[in-house]
């Protein structure tokens, strides 16, 4: 029986303590992860700026790069689009991991994390919930880029399976990179600092790859770096899977990069997360 005061049903002082569960069941942990993903996605509804962030911004990049730089870089906007769409997809996914990090840092800063941690829920749910939500946002952004790209004249050179494989590869890679960003968020614990990190690291990393520009046009010293750059490797893999060109080698290399990122950063991120929370 609940007792009521001022209309507030508060607690049952005679409730048996035996009703407590000793630990979170795995299925409950999964449900909690989904509830927290729902929360991150509902935020979008209330914050149109975020919608611009992950819907309008990639499309703007696509339009600007294709029609402004396309002719100069690729000979014609159409030829450039065939080359650059893969790069824009990779770049957009990479920048989305920044949202994972700023979101986490905001939750830490505002104290929402303390609220979650005071609840009897799985310890991993707050982190997993955000990562799942960001994967959902990315899938949406990739689909949108593809549809608009196709309207602009992009032609898939392989087939639906190739496109699916490319999407899966991008998601796997971003998930791996997201661990590094989670670590940054835990160490910085302020959304502004995370943004600065993104600007200082992610921006140059992306622009010194072959995501937007063929490596051959760069000066020699930069070519060496650009070829090794994981963003180039992933962009090549996506091109191979969606358009044409070698597939096996860039895909394997991308997966190795993803594995390396996960092995190095996931334990560090989880440790920082546990210490932080």
């Amino acid at each position, binding site marked *: 029986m*609940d*007792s*009521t*005061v*001022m*209309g*507030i*049903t*508060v*607690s*049952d*002082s005679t*409730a048996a*303590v035996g009703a*407590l*569960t*000793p*630990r*979170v069941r795995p299925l*409950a942990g999964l*449900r*909690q992860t989904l*509830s*927290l993903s*729902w*929360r991150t996605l*509902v*935020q979008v509804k*209330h*914050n149109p700026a975020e919608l611009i962030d992950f819907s309008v911004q990639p499309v703007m990049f696509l339009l600007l790069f294709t029609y402004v730089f396309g002719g100069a870089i690729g000979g014609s906007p159409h030829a450039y689009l065939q080359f650059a769409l893969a790069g824009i997809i990779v770049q957009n996914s990479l920048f989305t991991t920044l949202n994972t990090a700023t979101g986490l840092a905001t939750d830490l800063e*505002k*104290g*929402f*994390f*303390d*609220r*979650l*941690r*005071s*609840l*009897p*829920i799985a310890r991993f*749910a707050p982190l997993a919930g955000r990562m799942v939500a960001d994967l959902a946002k990315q899938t949406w952004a990739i689909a949108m880029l593809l549809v608009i790209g196709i309207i602009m004249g992009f032609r898939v050179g392989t087939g639906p399976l190739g496109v699916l494989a490319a999407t899966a590869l991008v998601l796997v890679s971003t998930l791996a990179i997201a661990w590094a960003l989670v670590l940054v968020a835990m160490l910085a614990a302020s959304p502004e600092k995370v943004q600065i990190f993104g600007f200082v690291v992610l921006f140059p990393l992306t622009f010194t790859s072959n995501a937007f520009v063929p490596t051959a046009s760069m000066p020699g010293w930069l070519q060496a770096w650009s070829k090794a750059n994981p963003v180039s490797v992933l962009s090549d893999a996506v091109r191979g899977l969606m358009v044409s060109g070698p597939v096996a080698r860039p895909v394997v290399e991308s997966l190795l990069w993803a594995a390396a990122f996960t092995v190095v950063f996931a334990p560090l991120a989880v440790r920082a997360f546990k210490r932080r*929370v």
Partner: protein
Amino acid sequence: MTYSIIADGLVKRFGETRALNGIDLAVPTGTVFGLLGPNGAGKTTAVRILATLARPDGGHATVCGHDVVRHAHQVRQLTGLTGQYASVDETLTGLENLVLIGRLTGQTRAAARARGQDLLASFRLEDAADRAVKTYSGGMRRRLDLAASLVTRPRVLYLDEPTTGLDPRSRNEMWEVVRGLTATGVTVLLTTQYLEEADLLAGEIAVIDHGTVIATGTPDELKARTGALTLAVRPARAADLAAVRAVAAGFTRTAPEVRGSTVAVPVTGEDVMPAVVRRLDDAGIAVAELTLRGSTLDEVFLSLTGHRTEDELEGSAA
């Protein structure tokens, strides 16, 4: 008497600083227990340990018999936390916040919604149910935060400075709510820097300073411990303030304190009153107000620690 919270020698270090230096607490079930101390005394650290958000470096604590470290999951099922800062998601609506917590703790969608709407109505937030929390006023946000900590029907509730930064009206509303809670059998651990707040709400108080409990007891016991009364004199003319201060100094060993237009001194007994009146009269000072009253917790704190709480002016103004 049964105790809902028992802490035994809690120690917490942050680098070189000892935030907690061996805190002992015993909070009787169904009461409001006040943890009173200035900023940085260790109140929040103690609450974070009891709410399983931080691990103690020494000592141990139980909530309803469950160890806060080894049985943290059980403790979380029994407790609710209202933090120093409203820890809800500002971008979500009030109702969405409450539904989220309900869903996270295993309620069905319908049950979480119903519970959320009930709580919003109880806290007079139903009109703001579908508005983003970032549009709420400070008082509304704090009420929502409290509502959020009640979604799970906790038996022990931590209120970490629930009224800090609120205007007097919102503060009074909050006090009403806290009083209502204990009538339902919930045990409340309240931290506050407002002495008036602890005096009004708590059945028992632990005064903490620099990570140690320096006194415990009911508000009356703490007041009695100083064994003092306070004499307050307000001259009719502000120009007489210095003269009043000089007169008052003759009745006490400690320096008289001037607060606004009033001079206050601790005195030992009621028998000083006629002498005070005579001396003021001799000095030709017209008096607007002359009172002799029991010490406030504020004054108790001064006599226990030798220093005032940092927010004493705010506290006494509330």
